[in-house]
């Protein structure tokens, strides 16, 4: 699936309820911590995130729930798609694998479900359902397509100093 198709698909999602944004922001730190604990219980964690990346993983979880609360406040499908793409490319350049995203997103969804009331969760569940169903597409696209933010660079230098 091409990025344009993801953008079109994201634009079809029902608008999340902005009234939930404050609640999600309040709970984001707790949910991030819960998600990190879930992931840390996995025996294959280091395989998923690469060595020495537990701190970075915890940071991603914080950023994830904060971003969801922002997205709910003012939904922008372009931001949604480009941010997910940017995040995949950023973290995967630091050793995270596709397997991490396949594991993390359903766990993030479960974490949200546990920490929200049923009707609260139901108003954001379309975002998670969409993310989980399209993560394979994002992984494929991230291998060959830069996010919008990267494409702003008109210099596009080769990697500097032989860094990985």
């Amino acid at each position, binding site marked *: 699936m091409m990025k344009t198709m993801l953008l079109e698909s994201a634009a079809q999602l029902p608008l999340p309820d902005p009234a939930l944004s404050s609640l999600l922001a309040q709970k984001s730190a707790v949910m991030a911590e819960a998600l990190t604990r879930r992931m840390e219980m996995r025996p294959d964690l280091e395989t998923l995130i690469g060595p020495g990346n537990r701190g970075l993983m915890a940071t991603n979880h914080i950023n994830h729930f904060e971003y969801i609360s922002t997205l709910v406040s003012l939904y922008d499908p372009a931001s949604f798609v480009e941010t997910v793409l940017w995040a995949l490319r950023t973290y995967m350049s630091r050793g995270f694998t596709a397997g991490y995203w396949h594991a993390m997103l359903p766990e993030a969804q479960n974490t949200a479900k546990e920490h929200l009331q049923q009707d609260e969760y139901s108003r954001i569940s379309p975002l998670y359902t969409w993310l989980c169903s399209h993560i394979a597409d994002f992984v494929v696209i991230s291998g060959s397509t830069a996010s919008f933010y990267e494409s702003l660079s008109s210099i*596009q230098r080769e990697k500097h*100093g032989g860094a990985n």
Partner: protein
Amino acid sequence: MAAPTDRFHPCEAEKLAGTYLELMLQARRNDALRCIQKAIARGASLSDIYLKVLQPVMYETGRLWQINAIDIAVEHYITAATQLTMAHIFPHALSKKRTGKKMVGGCLGSELHQLGLHMLCDLFESEGWDTYFMGAATPGKSFLTVVSDQHPDLLCISVTMQRGVPEARETIELLRAKLGADCPKILVGGLPFILSPGLAAAVGADGTGTDGAQAVALATQLTS
């Protein structure tokens, strides 16, 4: 003044940007500054340097960090060194006749990325505006305080991270509620608005520009 054959041509900007970036990556800050100063001496405008050299360099620096090609410390070094470059060439911003208009600009809330707004303020100065640059991490209520004190014609709010977009909406709502007809024109800018220009209206702003030149042109139109 440079002889006609020595004059800087805008088509040289791309090569200059590449040279500047390479020197910065080699930690040769002073040599990088000298390249810019030579270009200015040859007639390069502030707009040429900011929009065609320094801005592309900063986008590429961000991209290199993102793909893990450089450490965050290197990005910070290049950012700080570029601010130094801007300080050295700022006097060239003050050559135009002043318009009598004033712009206040700030990065909202927890936003630390201030270089883009800094460049914007300098570009406004080069077009004859007076500017009041508040820098990074300015609380929304402080925007109200400063606007009430400074009575600008224009307020520019800068946001780099997506979480700043709802904050921008809240701040603009506050300003319009408290200031009414005395509220200045408001432009928003930064990555979320470059990606989705329609967000400017969604947050209640009067507009946005994809770069500094566009922002200045729009501001001139809005305040005429």
